[in-house]
């Protein structure tokens, strides 16, 4: 049962990612797209963790950790650009 749960969870996360993609493509403003990308990153953490469960493996920990720790960097940089056109002031 738990395997089915994991697999379905992965599919659901996939659907969530597809929805984010829609917003990413549709926009209309830059912050909307940044938000969509940020959501994709967060969903990716979920995906990686679920995949680690699925395989009973721990090799995806580092990747998930890196996204959680540094994934917002893209968001910060893109937002800063929108605010100032200049990301390092």
């Amino acid at each position, binding site marked *: 049962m738990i395997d089915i749960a994991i697999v379905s969870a992965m599919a659901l996360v996939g659907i969530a990612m597809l929805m984010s993609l829609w917003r990413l493509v549709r926009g209309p403003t830059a912050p909307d797209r940044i938000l969509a990308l940020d959501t994709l990153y967060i969903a990716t953490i979920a995906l990686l963790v679920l*995949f680690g469960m*699925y*395989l009973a*493996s721990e*090799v995806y920990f580092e990747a998930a950790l890196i996204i959680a720790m540094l994934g917002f960097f893209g968001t910060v940089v893109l937002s800063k650009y929108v605010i100032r056109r200049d990301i390092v002031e």
Partner: protein
Amino acid sequence: MEFAIATAIGVLAGAGVYLLLRARTFDVILGLTLLSYATNLLLFSAGRLAVGLPPVLREGVAHTPANHADPLPQALTLTAIVIAFAMTVVVVVVAMRNHADLRSDHVDGHEPGYSPESEPERTR
């Protein structure tokens, strides 16, 4: 799965080629980025596709190709990613300088219709 990866690589490569052939430096940079994604995926998949068999050895699992994806293309791809990054950085900087020095972001350094005779030499 092979079909999906192959087509994904194809789409990335095709999109990359199209953008590579655009006239503006930034578009070309985007094209190179897409192309390097395609290349990295291709190089990586030269070891064939395996789900859930990372080449990290564990106790109790025999150290054979049956239990592990081919690590060599992964290492090669890692090198390729880094090199592609380095190259992208260089293009980006050259594009910046190009635009600053020649006042055009056209890949050839000047807008179409420009003829070299009509313009003074600006090389040092």
